[in-house]
């Protein structure tokens, strides 16, 4: 699992070499507070790193989730639309946001591993 400075995590898919699942960390979920709204991107769109792809709103404020790398959104977690609280309950599991086909998997090499992220926060 890899982590970004924007408190997102990327988990490599078991079957597909170039697919990752993306979510936000426990730390980020705790800082945001209870989520009440999630707007997900359309499946199939091509995105560039740092594109704002997801809008989330907590009880406090709105924030954006950015694409961590270039690629294509291939699946979104539509369970979040009716139940945004999944992100707070299980940020590393059921609270995932989207899966993407990564344009260049070597972009992940420079990202933090779990130990480095723990130090970062």
């Amino acid at each position, binding site marked *: 699992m890899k982590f970004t400075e924007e408190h997102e995590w990327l988990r490599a898919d078991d079957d597909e070499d170039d697919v990752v699942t993306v979510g936000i960390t426990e730390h980020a979920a705790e800082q945001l*507070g*209870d989520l*009440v*709204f999630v*707007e997900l991107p359309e499946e199939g769109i091509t995105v560039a790193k740092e594109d704002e792809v997801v*809008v989330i*709103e907590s*009880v*406090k*404020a*709105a924030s954006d989730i950015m694409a961590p790398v270039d690629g294509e959104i291939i699946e979104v977690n539509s369970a979040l*639309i009716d139940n*945004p*609280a999944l992100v707070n309950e299980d940020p590393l599991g059921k609270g995932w946001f989207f899966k993407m086909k990564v344009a260049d998997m070597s972009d992940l090499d420079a990202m933090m591993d779990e130990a480095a992220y723990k130090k970062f926060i």
Partner: protein
Amino acid sequence: MTDTLLTTPLHALHLELGGKMVPFAGYDMPVQYPPGVMKEHLHCRAHAGLFDVSHMGQVILRPRSGNVADAARALEKLLPQDVIALKTGRQRYGFFTNDAGGILDDLMIANRGDHLFLVVNAACKEADIAHMRDALSKTCKVEEITDRALVALQGPDAESVLAAIAPGAADMQFMDVATHDSDFGPLWVSRSGYTGEDGYEISVAADRAEDFARALLDHDSVQPIGLGARDSLRLEAGLCLYGNDIDASTTPVEANLVWGMQKARRAGGAREGGFPGSDVILRQIEMGPPRLRVGLLPDGRAPMRQGTALFAAEDADAAIGAVTSGAFGPSIERPLAMGYVSIDHSGVGTKLWGEVRGKRLPVTVAEMPFRPATYKR
């Protein structure tokens, strides 16, 4: 230069309870505790919540004559409420107005027998006190109470919890005020609050406040509640936040607060007018205001926050209003808002559009409160 934040007598307790502290009206206050805004909100509605509102101003108007009616008559020069008819042991909601008919602050006014006791907003208290000293000093001593904390205990279990400390609290009705002796010294209690729940606001000596708060928190049903949930609770109750929903540029008529102006001060009343801006306000009551504060329910799940522009049609050019408070309502399980709209779009059920992140989303003008109040009447 950094401004030093003020603290309330319960500051150390907030830290001990894990409060996440933020600056609010010059004070270092808890915005939430570890359970978070959503759980705190729901707990308050289901059981009881304890709020530190010691940052608010507590002010005594003491009539120099010794006759409280003289203080009431004097205060009526500054606001459009009937204070003279306010009986001993009773409280009412009010608002100071300016010459243009705008609202300088909203407040609670209590008749405590030989004096009036006022609770005003933290951000306005200095200005309010100066305003009252300017206008009322001939008839009243204006005393700011700085040696007492103020807490609110709100929710269905508030009565049983407070009655365990001060049995007389159980006999009070909504908007009654009384002094109850307790192990924590005399408590100045009103059966009121700002959540839409039954409950109390309690003024307690600052040096006994922490022990008093701990005694309340010893009950399993009582949890501390931060400013975050205080905001969503008051919004569900349809209550205004000064600085957001009402201010010096909004009149009480536009703010839909005419219910808070008693007959005696309206056109044809025994003491018609005689408060700042009365010409503007009484004319607006007669002719209707150009805009009105209304409740708003977004049709979808996206909250419409403060500042969201409102339109009469999806493709309309000019906004007809804006949201002044908007959030998610944990008890009604959907987003909610209030705001000002032009009078011809203010009817309950009117379909409007709110612009969120560049997109026009449907929103409907709704009755307030969004959740019925549970006051003990």
